[in-house]
């Protein structure tokens, strides 16, 4: 086996070029790929795709890519440190300039061309909402080609809201609204609402006319958001979702991510809700 990239399990070598605190235990990792093959592989990845990030010696884990190629060469991942997660803990202990590995881009993506001209409602919950950021960036950078953009963002509490630095620029963009909600609002927090994302969604009440929704978050949230959207008149075909799967390979081999006869890693992670609803085995 040579070093020419014929081993699909081999990561591209990168270095940690930036680390930003996004929220409690959540950091944005900016990675600069070190060689031409890696850069070529990531030349035109799409919103919704994911990649495995390696903390060499600890392991690798899959994360949605939160950057877009149009905004520079650095690859960005929002990574939550899990108390018992060997890889996420190791990633969080890395310093600027440390080597990391990236394997990808993997999976399918949001059909950004097909949804041009439509009103888009993005609904994100916690760290699971991270794959929505490239959708938002893509729309903001090509604003006239998309309809209204409504962003509904939820977290358990304000300290877990991610990408807060960007909220002002999102709000300042024409035909773009941002609505926030947290499970429990501290007395001094005035930026958003208190309550579940479904309550927020039903209060904002977006119209289903020529609209498409994109939901990213934990399975249970995807389920209840779909119920609320149905109440608002959206059909399952108007709802796009990303499913999280336990994954070890990302290329349809290891068996980990199957839901019935589909593999989240290659058949997804992006699905129409109508596909998800018709799956043999529930994602819940």
């Amino acid at each position, binding site marked *: 086996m040579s*070093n020419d990239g014929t081993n699909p399990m081999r990561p591209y070598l990168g270095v940690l070029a930036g680390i930003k605190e996004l929220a409690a235990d959540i950091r944005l990792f900016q990675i600069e790929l070190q060689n031409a093959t890696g850069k070529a592989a990531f030349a035109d990845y799409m919103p919704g795709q994911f990649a495995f990030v390696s903390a060499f*010696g600890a392991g690798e884990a899959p994360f949605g890519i939160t950057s877009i190629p149009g905004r520079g060469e650095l690859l960005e991942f929002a990574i939550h440190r899990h108390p018992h997660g060997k890889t996420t803990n190791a990633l969080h202990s890395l310093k600027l300039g440390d080597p990391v590995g990236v394997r990808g881009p993997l999976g399918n993506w949001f059909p950004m061309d097909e949804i041009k001209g439509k009103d888009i409602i993005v609904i994100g919950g916690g760290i699971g909402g991270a794959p929505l950021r490239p959708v938002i960036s893509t729309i903001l950078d090509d604003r006239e080609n998309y309809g209204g953009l409504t962003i509904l963002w939820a977290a358990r509490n304000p300290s877990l809201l991610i990408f807060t630095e960007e909220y002002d620029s999102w709000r300042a963009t024409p035909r773009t609204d941002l609505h926030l909600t947290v499970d429990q609002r501290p007395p001094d927090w005035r930026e958003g609402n208190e309550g579940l994302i479904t309550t927020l969604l039903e209060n904002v009440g977006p119209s289903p006319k020529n609209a498409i929704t994109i939901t990213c978050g934990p399975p249970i949230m995807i389920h209840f958001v779909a119920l609320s959207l149905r109440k608002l008149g959206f059909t399952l075909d108007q709802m796009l979702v990303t499913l999280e799967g*336990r994954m070890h390979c990302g290329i*349809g081999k290891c068996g980990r991510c199957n*839901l019935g006869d589909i593999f989240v890693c290659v058949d997804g992670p992006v699905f129409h809700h109508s596909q998800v609803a018709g799956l043999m085995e529930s994602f819940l």
Partner: protein
Amino acid sequence: MMFMTHDDLTTWLDHLTKELKVIAPRDVGKGHVLYRPVTNSSEITFDYTRPDLSAKEFLLPHTERLMRFEKRADQLEMHDLSCEAEQIIFGIRPCDAHGFVALDALFRDQEPADAHYSQRREMTILVGMACPQMWEGCFCTSVGGAPDDPSHLDALLIPVDGGYAVQTVTDKGEKLLASADFKEVTDGQDRTLPEIPMNEIVPVLPPEQWPGHFDEDYWMRLGERCLSCKLCTFICPTCRCFDLRDEPIASGANLVVHERMRVWDACTAPNYRTIAGGHNSRPLKGQRIRNRYYCKFHYYPQDFGPLGCVGCGRCVEVCPVNIDILEMLSTVSAMQRELDVLEAEVEL
């Protein structure tokens, strides 16, 4: 059909073991036979039933070193680790060779090809030994195989009176056998192939009929007694789930070395589907047993072509709580018959 005496065979094997890595059935004591590397023919057993473990580990090792990471100060070097040299698996049973067909479809033929598996597969020659009978619990003939099926081998030996009938199947097999000494059958002895006693055929529902039975209570009842011990998947010639782990290999003041290993995994394990946030979409044992069987009889054939079961019967033998794939297959077929009756009544 060519013929080889037992002495010619052992002479040939002694010659092969000098040149190549040879894996063959070996009696490891107390009546247990395993496929193991051998250095000469005296280590091989020719009188064996179904080895306790399949030959899967020689193409998909239980622990396989994929890459090595060497870290010096801030510099990281990454090395792909490649596989060993050419190997012959001698005496492999036709069902175990059939198992490789399932692994081939996924690891080699489905893009992107797995580099390690494909390379090892390319360097492996399979010389099979037909089973003189079907053993207890074997049902290869129900899932497209046979005790003397040459199709997935490079060459097949069939025990006959006084030696072995030899059938070459592929060019690889022919080339390898060119170094062996064959006899023309001239002495009028009976060298015809023996009739092989067969086990009963079990009904196997065709892949497209399985989805209709996914929600049956049966699976949860079946799962109640499962211990989630994973034995059934580890001994299975076609179960292929894997995990990746980085393991420390060496560390010193200036150099830290890790290797990324691929290790066997099992879908019957409790946390198999638990995602980072803690959600588990397959928490019930019955759901996991169902997944294992659906993988074999519905997902695998639908997604990759071959069935994920070759009828070796090992999972029946090994399960500590007697969960029985044959009983499962009969039950599912019975459920289908009931469904057919109901549908016929609706049409009337």
